[in-house]
């Protein structure tokens, strides 16, 4: 099938969906491009090539390898770690290729490439006209990790912030940047950075390795886990960067991953099991909400009353995405690319 046809199909799919939902609400869902109104799945791929899969909100439209299809076979690099957004721009991070591909998030047309000044880039966020991207540099060293500060008018790295700890996930809240200092069970803190001065304001000790985090109502929820200790949830009061409370998980829930907060609930995963708990829970039950159909649960998120799970399988064959209701009823599944690791939403 020619791309133009696909585009048409995708376009029609979106409009059909829009017309169906018109009765329910009057939100303007006019698509801003072929890949609006849908889910973007990042397929990490191998050292040479990753890809993005688009799944329409109609739960029917699917387009594999969106970027290459739109940009005449060009690639986004290997080991595609994550994406972040700024207005209608999407930034796609490839950590094998030390490259960020900047595209229009709705059309996937190439805008620019940032391919110098990066060293194993991982996650990024935009604040006040600049992008902040964590870089791990050498995996065996925790003293060379940094945050690259990217000027979004030139798309060039203009300065770096040394972390002196692992640089992994990053989020922005109330003008401050928060970086998890943990990967693969290593590291034990969260760094707080003032982007106005590029200075580290505070380092919050989480005890064990932070695997994922989210902010909700002024509190940073940090999920921590490694291969030996019991996992735990650490709540940090962002007004003073002090630890508010901690919840230690049952021993059976070791190395908990993928914290996601939706509608006042916490969700996370252990192996292929999906768990949920109240935001203010003081204990965590060993009983999962449900067990997903993934053989290797890799990417996970909860959005708009849907639970998205990606299956990396054996890391050497195309993956799969499962979409569940918040009670764990399977609604739909889709084939995606090699090693799907995350979900992003174009609504």
């Amino acid at each position: 099938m020619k791309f133009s046809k696909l585009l048409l199909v995708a376009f029609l799919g979106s409009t059909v969906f829009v017309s169906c939902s018109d009765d329910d609400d009057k939100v303007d869902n006019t698509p801003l491009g072929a890949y609006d109104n849908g889910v973007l799945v990042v397929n990490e791929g191998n050292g040479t090539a990753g890809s993005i899969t688009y799944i329409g909100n109609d739960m029917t439209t699917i387009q594999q390898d969106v970027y290459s299809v739109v940009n005449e076979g060009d690639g986004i690099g290997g080991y595609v770690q994550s994406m972040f957004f700024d207005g209608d721009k999407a930034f796609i991070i490839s950590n094998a290729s030390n490259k960020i591909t900047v595209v229009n998030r709705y059309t996937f047309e190439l805008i620019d490439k940032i391919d110098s000044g990066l060293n194993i880039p991982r996650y990024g966020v935009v604040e006040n006209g600049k992008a902040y991207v964590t870089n791990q540099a050498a995996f065996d060293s925790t003293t060379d990790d940094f945050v690259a500060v990217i000027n979004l008018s030139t798309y060039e790295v203009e300065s770096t912030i040394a972390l002196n700890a692992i640089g992994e996930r990053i989020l922005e809240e109330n003008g401050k940047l928060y970086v998890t200092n943990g990967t693969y069970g290593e590291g034990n803190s969260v760094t707080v950075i003032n982007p106005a001065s590029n200075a580290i304001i505070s380092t919050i000790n989480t005890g064990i390795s932070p695997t994922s985090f989210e902010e909700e109502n002024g509190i940073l929820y940090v999920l921590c886990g490694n291969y030996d200790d019991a996992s735990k949830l650490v709540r940090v009061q962002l007004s003073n960067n002090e630890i508010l409370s901690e919840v230690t998980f049952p021993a059976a829930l070791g190395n908990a991953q993928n914290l996601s907060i939706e509608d006042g609930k916490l969700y996370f995963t252990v192996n292929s099991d999906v768990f949920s708990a109240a935001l203010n829970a003081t204990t965590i039950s060993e009983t999962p909400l449900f067990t997903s159909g993934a053989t290797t649960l890799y990417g996970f998120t909860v959005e708009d009353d849907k639970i998205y799970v990606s299956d990396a399988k054996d890391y050497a064959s195309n993956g799969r995405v499962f979409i569940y209701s918040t009670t764990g009823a399977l609604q739909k599944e889709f084939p995606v690319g090699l090693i799907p690791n995350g979900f992003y939403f174009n609504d």
Partner: protein
Amino acid sequence: MTFRKQFLFFIFFVCQFALAQNDSIQYLEEVKVSDSQLKNFSNSQSVQQLSDSIINNSQASLTSLLNYNTVIYFKENGLGMVSSPSFRGTTAQQTAVIWNGININSQLNGQTDFNTITTKDFNTVNVRAGGGSSIYGSSAIGGSIHLNNDLSFKDNFSNDLELNYGSFNTFGLNYKLNVSDEKFSFQGSISRNSSDNDYKYLNTDRKNLNGQFYNNSFNSSFGYKINATNFLKFYSQFYDGERHFSLVTPSDSKTKYTDFNTRNLLEWSSFLNQFTSRLKVAFLSEEYRYFENITSDDFFFGKVETFIAKYDLTYDVNEKIKINTILDFTQNKGNGSDIQSDKRQIGSASLFFKHLVTTKLQYELSVRKEVTSTYESPVLFSAGANYRFTNFYALKVNGSRNFRIPTFNDLYWQGAGNPDLKPESSFQGEIGNEFRYKNFTFTANFYHIKIEDMIRWLPGNGGMFKPQNTNKVSIYGAEAILNWNKKTANSVFDFNGTYAYTNSKNDETGYQLTFVPYHKMTASFGYSYKKINAFYQHLFTGEVFTQTDNNPDATIEMYNVSNIGVGYGFGKKNSFTIGFKVLNLWNEEYESVENRPLPGRNYNLNLTLNF
């Protein structure tokens, strides 16, 4: 022994030999090679010998030699980069490389990187297809590659120097010295290969970046005849190589990798009536360093030192029956940045039996059992027969059980190693047909292999990979090998061709293993007329899957690549030869691993001096 000492030793004996050329010639076939089982207990299987001229026509790496002349498939991460074989549809860890009778596969990852072996350091290279674990131990499932230095006790003094230079600033040097008489035999060689390796990717505006490499190797083999029945032999090799790993995308981090391997083998052989006794002591070391960013001096490393003591006794009951026993003790000591320091000891006992029932029929049996505290080891065996119906046709039948033991990485990788792993084990049956007619030899082999407990690194919670005994694999296939040569007064013409069909499926999924082509074919023609010689070689490799789900969008396309060369000899005995080669003559755009293009048409000039 340090290199300095080695070098002194070398100088000392070279001088001795130069002075001590005697005229008595004695030739003892049994002493010539160290790998006596290759000759004595491989009669029911297919053994392909790659001659000097084939070695000389090929590029220096073992990858290139075997890729263009055998049924073995190779994947290479760019020219000169990491190279892994698949023999009879098996994995890279299921082909054993045997150096003068000693298994030299890495104890760390279980395989040999075929771009770290320089073929010109050896007199003969043999390819033994099919199971050989009862003789050669771990990894001899798909087959084994034998690198031999032959020592002969006859008057000889020769020097050979080969220099070549080609595209991408590729340089090669090989110097060989052979000195022998009836009492001493010495063979030394030095090789150096290097390249900027910055070839252009065809049909793009990109070049191969950060692909430069060099390697040096020093080899010496020494034989001393103590008396008419006792011989001492010593084989030694040092290999030192550094490769920058070429980039997939120009913005990739630049990495490099170094190898430092040493191999030493001392052998004392005695011939007492019907008994032949060989006592061997070997010391091997391997060390790699991986620099994940060349701007930093930090590196990951792994190192293993191996000590082997072997007693090999052969008893010729009569002219028709041969019994051979081997007792072997091997100790591996490993450490590294990611593996726990550990020591592994393996003892083994083997028994081989060969019986020439009639002039037409012979059969051979072998059995081996290893004992180690690290894992449970199966009883390995091989049974085969060879029946020569006529001069024209012989039938070979062989069945064997073989294995591949868990490596240091599999067992001791920090946080991931699995000490409960079992060896991969396989049963194999094959039928070989050998036809000879005048100057033709045609071999057709059919085989079936079942492998279980495949060791795979599988992802667990949080993306941590751990090795596990998992899939079963069933392989069947066919191989055809054709040789023809014709000599007249002034000319020699020869042809060698191979074809392999390989069906290698994961039992659980029914999918073909990744990087195993269904079809592979090679052909080479050589022609020489008086002082001129020429060759043409061709390689066809079928499509391979890169994903375990045989996704039709994730494949490496088939390719056809040809090389051509001409040479001219000067002097009475062609003591000076000049040659020119065109590699990838048809400028095929190809790769054997995704996004790692191999070079287009390129050139090589070589000079050879024999004096």
